[in-house]
């Protein structure tokens, strides 16, 4: 009997996230993903110090230089250094996706947790609203919001956050439904804890690892959506460097200077790949079905 209770407790043990991280560390895919992502993050953070040129400074004499030589990854049609622009562009990608995912995680997570805890008709209606949100493809929803609000950095964050709220609400609600029936929640009520305290001091820490793992997976989607919006001209406005914008500009000279589209495209690919590899590793590490392998 006690073993049954132990098994039931296992997925929400206190060290869940820590042990998941430990397991993920042993996984070469996750490690590779972490290295790729960390390199890009380092490049973005250190951009002002390591970028060889000003990313927006035009130098018409040196336009369309090929990679190598003075310019590591060549220059674009205005003579701007591609490598420096990539470093600065990483900042936009990371800030927008991190901000959007953090906002979605907080709002969506809270909606899902509260909805699952309250239950009944409230839960039904909230989750149906979430399903409606979920039925829009991320890009279309993002497009609508940016078109309505205008292509500013904050609006991009809002747009992408909106597309990710529903999945976070779902992922937070499911374990809340299970947890609220557990004896320690009733025991907490019997100790005179308010519903707010039960929700944020007792249920939240129990579902946090699942929500965080979900966050790492959705970061990749957010990067992709940001790049797509920039590509179609709804991202942060030029001359600010964005990867999606650079890829689009590169298409104008795809035959003379293919590196202009290829390098930012590769950067997007690498960041999305790295984030996905981390997310997959974390998800596998927290998945009890894969735990015994």
């Amino acid at each position, binding site marked *: *009997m*006690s073993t049954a*209770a*132990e098994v*039931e*407790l296992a997925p*929400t*043990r*206190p060290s*869940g996230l820590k042990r998941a991280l430990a397991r993920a560390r042993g996984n070469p895919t996750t490690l590779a993903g972490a290295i790729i992502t960390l390199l890009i993050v380092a490049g973005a953070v250190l951009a002002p110090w390591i970028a060889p040129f000003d990313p927006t400074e035009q130098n018409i004499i040196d336009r369309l230089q090929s990679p190598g030589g003075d310019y590591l990854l060549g220059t674009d049609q205005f003579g701007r250094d591609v490598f420096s622009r990539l470093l600065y562009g990483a900042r936009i990608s990371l800030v927008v996706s991190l901000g959007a995912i953090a906002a979605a995680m907080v709002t969506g997570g809270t909606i899902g947790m509260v909805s699952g805890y309250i239950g*009944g008709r409230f839960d039904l209606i909230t989750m149906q609203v979430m399903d409606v949100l979920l039925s829009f493809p991320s890009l279309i929803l993002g497009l609508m919001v940016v078109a309505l609000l205008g292509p500013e950095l904050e609006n991009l964050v809002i747009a992408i956050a909106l597309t990710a709220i529903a999945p976070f609400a779902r992922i937070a609600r499911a374990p809340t439904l299970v947890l609220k029936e*557990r*004896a*320690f929640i*009733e*025991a*907490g*009520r*019997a*100790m*005179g*804890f*308010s519903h707010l*305290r039960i929700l944020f*001091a*007792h249920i939240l*820490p*129990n579902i946090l690892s699942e929500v965080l793992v979900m966050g790492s997976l959705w970061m990749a989607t957010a990067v992709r959506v940001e790049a797509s919006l920039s590509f179609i001209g709804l991202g942060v406005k030029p001359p600010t460097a964005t990867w999606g914008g650079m890829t689009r500009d590169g298409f104008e000279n795809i035959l003379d200077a293919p590196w202009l589209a290829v390098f930012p495209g590769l950067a997007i690919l690498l960041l999305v790949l790295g984030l996905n590899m981390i997310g997959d590793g974390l998800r596998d590490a927290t998945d009890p079905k894969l735990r015994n392998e």
Partner: protein
Amino acid sequence: MTPALAIAGLRTEFRIGGAWHPAVSDLSLDLMPNETLALVGESGCGKSVTAMSVMGLIRPPVGRVTGGRILLEGRDIAGLPEAELESVRGDRMAMIFQEPMTALNPVMTVGDQVAESLRIHRGLSRTEALGRARALFEEVKIPSAAARLGEYPHQFSGGMRQRVMIAVALACDPAVLLADEPTTALDVTIQAQVLGLLSDLRARHGMAVLFITHNLGVVAQIADRVAVMYAGQIVEQGPVGAIFARPAHPYTRALFAAIPRLDRPDQALSAIGGRVPPLDAMPDGCRFAPRCPLRRAGCELPQTLEPLSEEHAVRCHVAAHA
């Protein structure tokens, strides 16, 4: 002396198929300070519902308390607004539960769980509360208390977890402790230790303990008085000695007859024939009548608790006038 807890005419209803049916009806109890009253009965007879009603944890849409008064140290807490109830729960009255495995938050250290109610009800700082938690751990005899404060529930055995639960419940020195089958999930040696601990603590704090159990052996060990419940009603109430020596209600007698005896190895286990009537099909008269060997004319009328002696009362016209 005012009772620590006085319940009068409690009625708690649940919704079944669109209609409300009482799970507990006309339940009255007085619980004096430094007294243990055992509430005995089989599963589903309304013992836990009684405790949850007292705690104010039965709320619509699930269930509702529709009648009666619940006086905690003389103050009627039935129907208090939620916010006021929250300030009473865990402070003046506390509850311990059956499942020590799941009644603690798995991601919070046990020290913080004991400290939490002190911080809420007493406004202590975390450091002060943890200091008090350490004293409580020593009081419930958890070895190396200081070191174990920072551990998580899964690092504790079942018996130790139940001690943590008791420490949580005792944190604010409540006047009334509701213990809902606190030893059912423990093996017998641990059960004996926990029962001993509870008796000690009750005497030291002068608490009133409402001890819910279906185990008559536990009743004999811990209770001063006994209330036997059947189908949502108290059918017999009295001092533990009188109930064990002269059980009056046919149901109480059947319960005692069902205890297997060590000195009769060949006996067949005796069981009570029939089953408890469902909530939505309660007979108007005696609720035990359909299963009762003494059934006779008059059993179809509603029964009242009638005194047999000064403290011993029974809800059975046959037993009361025997």
